[in-house]
């Protein structure tokens, strides 16, 4: 499973996204190797979130293409991408707050639990639904949340909600998971547990790409890191290289000073 594949599973070529006069992503290219944990970092406003939103089909690219398993997927709907095996998570606790934990994951099993309209009406979808429920429970167990299956989401602590968000995505059986800031707002202990989970997800054969601000977590976790600045590629490489790259250090320092100035004002 972990054998590196030469052909990238996810690739962007010359990706550009404009909003009116603002160029959020500017001729940006990268490629993600199958089986990797790939980090996408950059100072605030570098265009990471926009890049994620373009890859996951929330925005169409203004120019350039995204390839997934060799197919041009630029501008396709998010739900189509999910059916192809590209599933994203969201920042914070974006969940079906009114549902129980199990129902959240059951919704995540949407693609795996197909049935005809009539059999839904007549209840003959029971066997496929039972299977979906079993798989949903197994996914919850993978995250250690099976005890909380019937708990309404709004009762769960923040850390559990974040894991549940990953469980919903994993239930869709993705080939590639896009994680949007999985460690933000977590304490060091929660971060460590979450990092272990991301590795276990990768070990199940799921390629992981993540956007994250927690530098230490990214450096420890990722096999390869792409650094963005001003919407474009700055540096790409293994953590040791990226860490010591003068351009990266300058980009972060520059933004740190700018932030400091903003805060003071």
């Amino acid at each position, binding site marked *: 499973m972990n054998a590196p594949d030469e052909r990238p599973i996810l690739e962007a070529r010359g990706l550009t996204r404009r909003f009116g006069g603002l160029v959020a992503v500017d001729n940006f290219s990268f490629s993600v190797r199958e089986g990797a944990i790939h980090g996408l970092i950059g100072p605030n406003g570098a265009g990471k979130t926009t890049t994620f939103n373009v890859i996951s089909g929330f925005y169409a690219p203004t120019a350039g293409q995204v390839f997934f398993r060799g197919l041009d997927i630029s501008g396709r709907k998010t739900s189509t991408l999910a059916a192809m095996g590209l599933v994203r998570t969201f920042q914070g606790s974006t969940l079906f707050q009114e549902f129980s934990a199990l129902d959240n994951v059951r*919704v995540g099993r*949407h693609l795996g639990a197909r049935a005809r309209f009539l059999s839904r009406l007549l*209840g003959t979808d029971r066997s496929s639904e039972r299977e979906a429920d079993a798989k949903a429970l197994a996914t919850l167990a993978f995250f250690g949340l099976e005890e909380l299956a019937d708990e309404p989401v709004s009762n769960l602590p923040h850390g559990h909600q974040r894991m549940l968000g990953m469980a919903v995505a994993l239930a869709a059986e993705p080939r590639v998971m896009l994680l949007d800031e999985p460690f933000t707002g977590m304490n060091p202990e929660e971060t460590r547990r979450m990092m272990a989970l991301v590795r276990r997800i990768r070990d199940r054969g799921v390629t992981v790409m993540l956007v994250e601000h927690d530098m230490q977590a990214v450096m420890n976790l990722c096999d390869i890191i792409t650094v963005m600045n001003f919407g474009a590629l700055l540096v790409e490489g293994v953590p040791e290289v990226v860490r010591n790259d003068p351009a990266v250090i300058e980009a972060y320092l520059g933004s740190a000073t700018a932030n400091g100035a903003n805060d003071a004002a």
Partner: protein
Amino acid sequence: MPGTGTGKLVRRIAWQLRLVFLFAVLAVLPYLLSYSQQEIAVLLVINVLLVSSYRLLTLTGEWSLGHVVIMGVGAYASALLAKRLGVSVPVSLLLGGGIAAATAAVLSFPLFRMKGFYFLIGSFAAGEIIRLIWKRFTEPFGGPKGLKRIDAFPDIDIGFLSIDFFEPVNYYFLALVVVSASLFVLYRIERSRIGLTFHAIHWQDRLAESVGIDTFRYRTLAFVIASFFAGIAGGLYAHYVGAVNPTRFGVDQMVYVLVWAIVGGTATFHGPILGVVVLTVINEIVLRALGLDTARPLIYGAILILSVLYLPNGLESLAPRVRERVRRWRSGPAATGEGAG
């Protein structure tokens, strides 16, 4: 404990007993009513289907202002099919529902490019266009005066059994059968994975989309199903009253549907049904008795405002609150430390 086998069985039996009791009451009810009250009961049964089908649409989080017009589409379609093409009424009723559903399917292309407030206004505009078309084109829609002398439901006469559906009691039972069957289908849909998916789209459409739910398709599905049953309600209405016109499906009528749904509470299946029943009873018994018929819109308006302000989850949410009060009162002020008030 909930979840154990026997507990489930007991609850199921209790539920079924309640259902049997309900149908027994519904079966006896018309014989306790006067002729004009029987007529009202028929309309009430039809309105139950109208408001329940509306609730299915609201499950996806979208509130339409065109639902009553869609009911009108079913009414006009079924009436015209019977009047002009001689289609027999039970068939035209189903076809009317189908045409209402098809209208919704076509409308969903412009309308579901919008959400929330824009969908509301868009559905209002679409509904008004349909109404204006009825008004403008005398052929075949009859213009502002609408259609009259719409074919009644055919009598059943098979020797030992003869039923004349001109009698309100008989039409009441006919409507009751059709509406009960429709409600059963609506209930099954909601309890299935389709219902779960509708709810999911309501609460987090982006998350739903990210796990492969085609939110456009499911919103359309909800709209089409809701419209089918609204169309059936429209057909039931047209063949009972015998006349339809554009004003009958106007915004005022839509407001009543909103009031029933909101006052009853859309969180549960039975909430809107409770809403339409309670408000109709209040309307017909209290207002008519007091001679306050013309004040109906005013009172509905006031009820609508009060329920939006003070009962955001509808009448249905009153029951647990009252139960809670009673429980506290029984256990005494000391037990809760807050007092019984």
